[in-house]
């Protein structure tokens, strides 16, 4: 059986909402009203039953069924007090909605009079339709609140007033614990998802972080993972004090790996980690020297405010080229940065 989250919400609501949230005011009839007038009253108000009230007390209810029975019995004109239903099931206004639902199920009535618990006076009437309508309204309000809250999170960077806003997530990764690899990437992924960032951007950040995190565990002996968000980019910085890298250019080659066999048996160490990081980021720099640790910095572009979409380099930095083509300058500068990797990058 599939679980439907909105059903759970309804189950909560039937306990949260009170009968008074669904009840509506209704016309009442005095006990002296004649049966011959009932048809016209019910018809003009488009209702199927009306409570009979005298001295502010509910005395009974007169329904279409009572009227039909009266006609069948000869139609002798008498006050409604003689033909109304006296055997009433009523609800108190402060009861939970679930009580009304149970009573509809149990008694098969179409409506119940609703009374004030303190005074016993009639407050209104509640029908099956009222219950459904009030639940739908509550669900709609709940949905609207969620939408607002999502909007506020998604637009965090735009709504925050400052010259520049940064959001930083910091994590520490323990070395050697390969079984915990991916915990940090998973946490970061959930945070970005909470902020309403576009799934495509999140996937790239998650892959970059996960690959770097595994490297940190396998080769770096643990270290720090930091993600800095601003309105244009997500910068993932992963640093360790491990053995460092001899030849950064070499480790960037697809398939190059120094992983021991046991790591390979676990499905890692195929020499695709850094190429994967490079492919999923707009800028990548690695600063490493043997014995001095490694610092990797990857930048993934995005645009805040536009549903957290991926960043489009051409939109902000492109200049018109010959023949109406758009020359993308950023691509070149990114290429330049990557080719600088051997020199230690800009970290």
């Amino acid at each position: 059986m599939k679980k439907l989250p909105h059903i759970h919400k309804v189950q909560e609501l039937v306990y949260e909402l009170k009968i008074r949230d669904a009840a509506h005011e209704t016309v009442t009839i005095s006990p002296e009203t004649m049966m011959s007038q009932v048809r016209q009253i019910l018809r003009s108000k488009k209702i199927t039953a009306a409570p009979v009230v005298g001295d502010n007390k509910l005395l009974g209810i007169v329904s279409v069924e009572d009227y039909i029975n009266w006609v069948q019995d000869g139609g002798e004109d008498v006050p409604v007090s003689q033909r109304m239903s006296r055997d009433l099931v009523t609800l108190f206004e402060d009861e939970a909605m679930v009580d009304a639902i149970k009573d509809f199920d149990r008694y098969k009535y179409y409506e119940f009079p609703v009374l004030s618990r303190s005074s016993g006076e009639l407050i209104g009437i509640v029908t099956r339709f009222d219950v459904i309508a009030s639940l739908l309204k509550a669900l709609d309000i709940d949905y609207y609140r969620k939408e607002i809250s999502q909007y506020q999170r998604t637009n965090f960077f735009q709504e925050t007033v400052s010259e520049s806003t940064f959001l930083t997530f910091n994590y520490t990764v323990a070395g050697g614990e390969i079984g915990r690899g991916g915990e940090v990437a998973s946490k970061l992924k959930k945070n970005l998802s909470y902020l309403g960032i576009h799934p495509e951007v999140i996937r790239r950040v998650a892959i970059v972080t996960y690959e770097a995190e595994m490297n940190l565990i396998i080769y770096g002996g643990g270290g720090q993972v930091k993600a800095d968000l601003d309105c244009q980019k997500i910068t993932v910085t992963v640093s360790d004090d491990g053995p460092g890298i001899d030849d950064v250019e070499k480790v960037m080659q697809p398939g190059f790996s120094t992983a021991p066999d046991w790591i390979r048996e676990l499905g890692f160490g195929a020499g695709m980690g850094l190429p994967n990081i490079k492919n999923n980021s707009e800028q990548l720099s690695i600063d490493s020297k043997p014995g001095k640790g490694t610092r990797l910095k990857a930048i993934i572009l995005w645009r805040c405010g536009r549903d957290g979409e991926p960043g489009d380099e051409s939109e902000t930095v492109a200049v018109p080229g010959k023949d109406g083509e758009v020359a993308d300058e950023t691509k070149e500068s990114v290429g330049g940065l990557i080719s600088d990797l051997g020199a230690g990058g800009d970290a």
Partner: protein
Amino acid sequence: MAKYFSVQDLLTTLEAEILLDDGWIRDRICCVCASDLHSDIMAHSRPNSLLLTGLTTPQVIRTAEMAEMAAVCFIHGKMPHKETIELARKNQMPLVISPLSMYDACGRLHAAGLPSRDDIS
């Protein structure tokens, strides 16, 4: 036009059984990624794919999470580690087991018309 597979079609084709699913499995799966290398899964997959793999450690769930796989199918009837199932439960990642080999599983899915990543425009 991409053809989507229903979960039931996939299970039948792979003679597979559901190991873990609590209403998470999506009814439409776009494509298949078959690999035993974590980095390859992330480099060569599309979101909402079925991952066919012989990897059974918890890391495969992490990898499937990052690459946004729709479900993980263990081949050769391999039962994943207990920790793997626990992590999958936490991350709401559906798990299925097929008795077929990787070769047979891929062959059958391909013959049944499930496109590879590159066939989808």
